[in-house]
């Protein structure tokens, strides 16, 4: 007897049996397909076909995962039985596995947080940290100070925007128990630089970040919900922050915390006179005009930072004359060919070459 070719439905069902685990499929695929063929032969009208396929799909969705789970349970049961018979081997194996899995998880968690997961900011590949160092004093990282920050902002060409912050705690009073929250004092443009927009209100304005101006504050979503009951009219209200009344100008989006646990932000409002170049407490962040093409770019970026005024005085040894120690205030990236204090000494790179 010659078999008739399978209908499209049967062919499709045969393909879908691949959802079952291989041993089960090899054992029963032919039977299952035959059963579908018989079911289809009972009635061939469109309604019956729809009903049949509804049954088959439900059946596939429930029994295929069950068969896979069953195989897994069988394997685990077999493994447990084998391990139970050899406890001297099982103990060390379980211990090694536990330590291995724990260590791997810890390393991955760290790598995921630091290397893999992108920063929660717009175009994070264009964000850089501006950090100063004093290798001669053994300080590899020291942040920056306010005058240097202003120099960077004024003279940088490769950076689109530069902002800064320093962490701090705030005491909230009024309308309930006093509460201490983590937060940061930020430059007025920091949130725009990061590309984070508030869900209510706005970010800080330039005029709110002046010396001794203490008027504005921005809340995190969590703090807004927790302390102020998610009041939609919170923007424009004045709340006491550390004894000073400040106007809430915005509420940041849910999940946004900066830095790390910060829930409240106020403008830095730094005084350029009171904050000198020796006051290193700022963390500066900048947005590049173009994305970093390679990891080498930050080094070039650091060299191109401005070297004006007193900021140059921080590194006189790079430019000082070997004879009279006169420091040259220059943008040159190579050593000058001669000393700029021509009236006090006659050193030049040629004379140096001769003496050596």
């Amino acid at each position, binding site marked *: 007897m010659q078999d008739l070719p399978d209908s499209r439905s049967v062919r499709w069902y045969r393909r879908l049996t691949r959802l079952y685990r291989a041993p089960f499929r090899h054992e029963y695929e032919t*039977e299952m397909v035959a059963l579908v063929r018989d079911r289809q032969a009972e009635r061939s009208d469109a309604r019956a076909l729809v009903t049949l396929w509804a049954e088959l799909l439900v059946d*596939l969705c429930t029994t295929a995962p069950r068969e896979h789970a069953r195989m897994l349970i069988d394997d685990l049961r077999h493994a447990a039985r084998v391990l139970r018979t050899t406890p001297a081997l099982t103990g060390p194996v379980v211990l090694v596995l536990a330590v291995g899995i724990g260590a791997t998880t810890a390393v991955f968690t760290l790598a995921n947080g630091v290397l893999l997961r992108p920063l929660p900011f717009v175009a994070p590949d264009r964000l850089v940290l501006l950090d100063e160092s004093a290798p001669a004093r053994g300080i590899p990282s020291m942040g920056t100070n306010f005058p240097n920050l202003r120099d960077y902002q004024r003279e940088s060409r490769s950076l689109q925007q530069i902002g800064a912050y320093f962490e701090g705690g705030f005491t909230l009073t009024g309308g309930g128990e006093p509460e201490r929250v983590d937060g940061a004092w930020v430059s007025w443009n920091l949130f725009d630089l990061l590309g984070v927009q508030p869900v209510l209100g706005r970010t800080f304005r330039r005029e709110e970040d002046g010396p001794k101006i203490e008027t504005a504050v921005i809340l995190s979503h969590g703090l807004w919900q927790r302390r102020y009951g998610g009041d939609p009219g919170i923007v424009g209200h004045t709340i006491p922050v550390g004894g000073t009344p400040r106007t809430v100008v915005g509420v940041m989006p849910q999940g946004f915390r900066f830095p790390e646990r910060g829930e409240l932000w106020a403008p830095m409002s730094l005084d350029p006179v009171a904050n000198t170049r020796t006051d290193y407490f700022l963390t500066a962040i900048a947005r590049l005009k173009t994305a970093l093409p390679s990891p080498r770019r930050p080094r070039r970026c650091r060299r191109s930072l401005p070297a004006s005024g007193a900021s140059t005085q921080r590194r006189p040894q790079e430019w000082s004359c070997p004879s009279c120690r006169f420091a040259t205030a220059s943008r040159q990236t190579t050593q000058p060919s001669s000393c700029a204090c021509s009236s006090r000494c006659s050193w030049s790179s040629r004379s140096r070459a001769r003496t050596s």
Partner: protein
Amino acid sequence: MVLRSADGNPPAGPLPDVVFHILVALADNERHGYSVMQEVTALTDGRVRLSPGTLYGAIQRMLEQGLIEEVRGPKAAADERRRFYRITTDGRRAAVAETERLRRLLAQARIAGFAPKRT
């Protein structure tokens, strides 16, 4: 009667509905899968209709537990390539035990007034 729960052995607890239905369908005759499905549908007045995955998943477990066994189909069968199954002694015992369990359950339900009392 001995009901065992380890791999390859009959189950110790109540039988799953599908398994019991298949055992009942195979009680008087050896059948292939489609015939089992038809018999279950007929015995339950169409309330239970076994789909392929459910049917053959149950058949596989019942074969492993020794409740049914595969047999050569009758030569008179329309398609000799079909695989036929027959209830085993263990399968029959399991079905009897399940029936007894259900009978006791029904008796308790009658006492509680959940089912009509026998006349």
